[in-house]
């Protein structure tokens, strides 16, 4: 009789313990996790600006104004036919040297030389094995499909791509849009002697990670100053 009553007591104790664990550990953890999930999914895009302002106001250390890239772009109003090479500062890798925009596709991004992680994190990058606008050769530029070049899905033949640099402003007309494999070497010609712009991003546009295909947008130069006197 005594034994059974002590059993019942210990069972009651265990039940109380389980209830306590459920009430004070599991429920708070679950609620906390759910709240964080909601905050990240819904609130982060809205909060990021407030967080950066807050961190600037309340930081412990002296603020650092160094940036991960250098900007040599100062807007120019030159839409003429020619610009002398002596007036052009050729950008080195990871430097912002212009801006690129496609009005019809809501694309407006900084333009960098080089297509490594720094340029692609901050805008659109021109492959260093291609050339800058006005050089009369191929310009091969790229950007991430979930950020700066997501709008490529809206472009169509005939749309105008604008590039602004410190030495002149350029316009290119889209002549072809094609989806090709990433390792298709016929997708570009780096030895072309005619100025042409190739813009590409991962395809499908809303897929992240290692996609097999790229969407290539080909455009021909319409206007903008040709750099003359390069070969002295």
């Amino acid at each position, binding site marked *: 009789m005594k034994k059974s009553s002590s059993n019942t007591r210990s069972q009651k104790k265990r039940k109380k313990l389980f209830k306590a664990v459920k009430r004070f550990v599991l429920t708070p953890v679950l609620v906390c996790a759910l709240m964080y999930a909601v905050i*990240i999914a819904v609130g982060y895009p809205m909060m990021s600006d407030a967080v950066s302002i807050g961190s600037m106001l309340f930081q412990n250390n002296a603020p650092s104004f160094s940036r991960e890239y250098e900007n040599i772009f100062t807007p120019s109003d030159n839409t003429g036919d020619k610009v002398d090479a002596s007036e052009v500062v050729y950008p080195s890798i990871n430097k912002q040297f212009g801006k690129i925009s496609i009005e019809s596709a809501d694309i407006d991004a900084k333009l960098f030389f080089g297509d490594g992680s720094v340029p692609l994190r901050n805008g659109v990058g021109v492959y260093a094995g291609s050339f800058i606008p006005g050089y009369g050769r191929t310009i091969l530029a790229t950007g991430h499909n979930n950020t700066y070049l997501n709008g490529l899905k809206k472009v169509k033949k005939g749309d105008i791509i604008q590039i602004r640099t410190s030495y002149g402003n350029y316009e290119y007309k889209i002549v072809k849009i094609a989806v090709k494999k990433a390792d298709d070497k016929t997708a570009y010609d780096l030895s072309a002697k005619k100025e042409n712009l190739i813009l590409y991003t991962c395809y499908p546009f809303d897929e992240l*990670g290692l996609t097999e295909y790229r969407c290539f947008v080909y455009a021909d130069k319409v206007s903008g100053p040709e750099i003359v006197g390069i070969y*002295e």
Partner: protein
Amino acid sequence: MKKLLTLFLAAFFAVTFSTHAFAAGINSAEQSVLANMRTPANMNGTSVYVPDSYINQAEARFNTIDMTEAQASEINSNISAGRAFIEGTGKSSIKELSTEEKQTLLSYASAAAAVLDLVTPAGVNGDRVKIVTKDGTVVMDETENVIKVTGSADITPTVIAVSVIAFLLTVSAGVLIILKKRRICYEEIEQ
């Protein structure tokens, strides 16, 4: 006196902290190097060319410097020596070269780069070629793939956060199920 001091300091800082910005242009010395780079190597009857992307990157670099004739001469002798070396191996392509032969070829490339105070920090690592200035500024970072992976941008923190939350939810749900099961067992015993 104060104005004079201000002027002096302004001039001093302008000279000290200014960065060199060369106008675009390829002089005759640089043109001779580019022409030499475009000359194919005859490997066992097959013409082997330096890829266009490499030559274009050299041209981009030359647009930011002013090479002297003496520098060009030294670079050209290294390029020619490298070409003569691979032609003498008797192989038909760069891929057929042994690791030792590739290292020798790299030493010619490194010697050419060194003329312009450039270094190849990790050598040729697989298909990657990296050239930097002495202060670490990247001049060339080339992989075999001209077309890059552009399917994501800085999603790593989000992925980590979501993974942690998913893990917490799974563990909590597991513990909850175990507790519920035990509770049912106890209730059965009590009855």
